């Protein structure tokens, strides 16, 4: 038996034992794993070297150590003898537990053995629920969220949060709003209390509203500099024109100038209802504790609407259209082209995500050059087609936008658009087994890799409960992804992409962007 350390109280890097049961597998942390080799012979030679077939290693020497680590036998995880395989780890991932309060508020948490936790409130309200008149109310409210509650003034609130060393954050999107707090696991009760105050009894003082008005206006100005946001906002505004999804989260400046306390109170009263809320947590939280806290602090959340005015989400019509914001003074053109995609709960989402994984993304900083796996990325690198591109799929509850967004020089727009649409055509017609396998692997890796902390996990839980009513476990994602074959992929892509009218938005020096009819014609192939 040997433990490789200096004999001091250091972390053990390698625990070597001949007895199988001396290591308790369940006590292993995520970054640890065991390799179990049966039928290994003598381990120590006379000279105290490691005998490990096919040769001995003297581990005091650096180069021998490296050779030992790189030993192919050591590295080969023979499945029958490795303790934790990919499939096992997926299945063994802890599941989220779900409960509901009497007023309809849902509570979901996943217990991991982190010492920290993220707990938050996810509410299904966003700019999609706003009208023309109050578009931007959610965003404005977000600015006022942490400016004091009935029980704590702003400084008291900040003091409370900072004294715990916690992070209190919020975000608003088109369909969801989240208030969440990252804190130590032991501070969960205080965190839930503060969150409940922020959400239920924000003070919304007039003075603060006026001050934040200026901040909001300046932020509107500032976001003009983030051209990717501008481009994608314009994409929504044209793709879903005439529907609530066209509203940007930020709202028009006119509304920002004229919001009053009344608007915000109305907004809260119409949308912050318990059945639309989820209290989600991840990390070192115990579900029963969390439910108790929720009962204590969130039982008062209303679940009835005034005048029975329950907001209903109507389907949003997609319009194939374009919006061009030409400004030849800008150095780069930002272009996005999208078709209507699948809603969050639609099973077609998975093949579409695989298709996007096949198309991939690219950035000038990618060093792969001609060896990048995505054909479009190879082209982009080879012909210097763009500064960056990415394939995206934004899902809403019943619809989505699936597209490609790229940033390029003004002389390359036409070429890049041609090759991007060519990539779409490929995925609809000639995608091969190896492409699909690569896409599936990339998608699995990204889905799992995103969950690398309590906050992403908590966000995942919150959004899943709002979108699907349950947390979709990784094993299910895995199974759904595995079910995608080239034929399935082609069929789904043809359903959503082939010969459909796209929505295009472009910002910058876009003279070269082809006419809409030409882009529309590139959505099918005569040869097919």
């Amino acid at each position: 038996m040997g433990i490789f350390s200096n004999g001091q109280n250091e972390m053990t890097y390698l625990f070597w034992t001949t007895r199988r049961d001396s290591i308790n597998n369940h006590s292993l942390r995520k970054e640890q794993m065991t390799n179990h080799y049966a039928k290994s012979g003598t381990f120590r030679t006379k000279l105290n070297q490691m005998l490990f077939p096919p040769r001995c290693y003297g581990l005091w020497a650096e180069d021998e150590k490296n050779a030992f680590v790189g030993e192919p036998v050591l590295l080969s995880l023979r499945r029958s003898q490795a303790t934790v395989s990919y499939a096992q780890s997926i299945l063994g991932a802890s599941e989220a537990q779900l409960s509901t309060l009497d007023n309809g508020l849902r509570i979901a948490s996943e217990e991991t053995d982190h010492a920290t936790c993220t707990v938050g409130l996810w509410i299904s309200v966003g700019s999609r629920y706003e009208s023309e008149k109050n578009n931007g109310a959610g965003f404005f409210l977000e600015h006022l969220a942490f400016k004091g509650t009935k029980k704590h003034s702003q400084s008291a609130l900040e003091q409370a949060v900072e004294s715990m060393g916690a992070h209190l954050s919020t975000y608003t999107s088109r369909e969801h709003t989240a208030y969440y707090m990252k804190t130590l696991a032991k501070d969960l009760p205080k965190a839930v209390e503060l969150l409940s105050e922020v959400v239920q009894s924000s003070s919304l003082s007039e003075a603060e509203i006026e001050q934040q008005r200026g901040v909001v206006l300046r932020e509107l100005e500032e976001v003009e500099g983030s051209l990717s946001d501008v481009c994608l906002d314009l994409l929504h505004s044209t793709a879903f024109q005439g529907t609530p999804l066209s509203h940007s989260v930020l709202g028009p400046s006119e509304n920002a100038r004229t919001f009053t306390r009344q608007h915000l109170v109305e907004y809260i009263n119409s949308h912050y209802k318990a059945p639309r809320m989820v209290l989600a947590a991840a990390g070192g939280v115990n579900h029963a504790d969390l439910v108790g806290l929720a009962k204590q602090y969130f039982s008062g959340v209303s679940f009835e609407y005034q005048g029975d005015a329950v907001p209903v989400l109507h389907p949003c019509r997609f319009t194939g259209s374009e919006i061009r914001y030409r400004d030849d003074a800008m150095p780069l053109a930002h272009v996005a082209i999208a078709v209507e995609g699948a809603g969050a709960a639609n099973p077609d989402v998975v093949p579409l995500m695989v298709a996007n994984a096949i198309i991939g993304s690219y950035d000038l900083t990618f060093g792969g050059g001609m060896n990048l796996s995505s054909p479009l990325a190879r082209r982009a690198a080879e012909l210097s087609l763009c500064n960056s591109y990415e394939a995206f799929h934004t899902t809403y509850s019943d619809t989505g936008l699936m597209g490609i967004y790229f940033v390029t020089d003004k002389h390359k727009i036409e070429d890049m658009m041609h090759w991007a649409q060519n990539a779409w055509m490929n995925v609809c017609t000639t995608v091969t087994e190896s492409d699909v396998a690569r896409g599936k692997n990339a998608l699995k890796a990204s889905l799992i890799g995103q969950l690398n902390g309590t906050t992403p996990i908590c966000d995942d839980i919150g959004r899943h409960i709002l979108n699907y009513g349950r947390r979709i476990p990784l094993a299910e994602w895995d199974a759904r992804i595995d079910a995608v074959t080239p034929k399935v992929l082609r069929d789904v892509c043809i359903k959503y992409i082939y010969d459909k009218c796209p929505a295009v938005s472009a910002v910058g020096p876009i003279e070269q962007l082809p006419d809409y009819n030409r882009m529309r014609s590139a959505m099918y192939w005569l040869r097919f």
Partner: protein
Amino acid sequence: MKKIDALIVVTDQGGCALTPGGPIIGKWRQARLDVISRVPSSGITRSPSSYANCSHALKMLSVVARAGTVSPYLRAACLAVAGPLSAVSPAAVVKKDTVLLDANKPLLCGHCARTGPTVSSRLNAVAGVRFAHTDIRVPDFSVYRRPEVMDPKKSAQDSSDARKVFSYLMTGSTAVLGVYAAKTVVTQFISSMSASADVLALSKIEIKLSDIPEGKNMTFKWRGKPLFVRHRTEKEIATEASVNLSELRDPQHDKDRVTNPKWVIVIGVCTHLGCVPIANAGEYGGYYCPCHGSHYDASGRIRKGPAPLNLEVPYYEFPDDETVIVG
């Protein structure tokens, strides 16, 4: 509060880049920009951007320093859109007295040297300068919409196939009709080069048979060649019918050469070298070519002489007993 050396480019709707109304006189102005400070370590943070999990990066306004000229290009592609009603100040301090413009740069559209960026008004009557991209209103195109997609609360996917089928059907049939019309026009033009009506009229000849007595041969000009129409007697018919084919240089039975045995219609061009034979001459009771002495019988077959073939029989038909149309 951070002080940032900055060039702020103001754009109006026309897409022209304007320099701010304040002057850049050879050196960069100090611009004060209130930034929303991030407290990254702990405390309260907001994610002001509309997209979940995207971090709000403070855009660094970079300085492009070229002495004396105003460069509209920013490295970080950061723009501030200003309205004269608000907000470029306090971001940029505008000096109102002298405006020094680069003489080489033409005045950009909408730029008044004295007052700076102009207010533009739009037909939609939402007045004022666009402050941010969220102020852009997509116009209502209902006038152009098909009935199935008028309702914004209905998904467009349901009617998508029907609309496409209609469009393609219309396009397809228009294409077919168009091709047909084009073909018609083209053939009309090309066929104008073919024979005209008067020429075509010459291609047929109508002959009244009652004008030709029995035993007589009449000659007509047809298609530039002589046409022999012979009214044969019974004796001639019998004689010709009983000729032994093995005697003939170009064996053809009489009934193969005539439709109605009473009438023999042949082209009067000798098959030897093209002279016109004389009717009712020669040793066989038919025709005799005087040029080289070819004898034809009453059926127009060569019997003696240098000609190799029988006289040519054209196409003819008898619409009634009195007339024959040849050609």
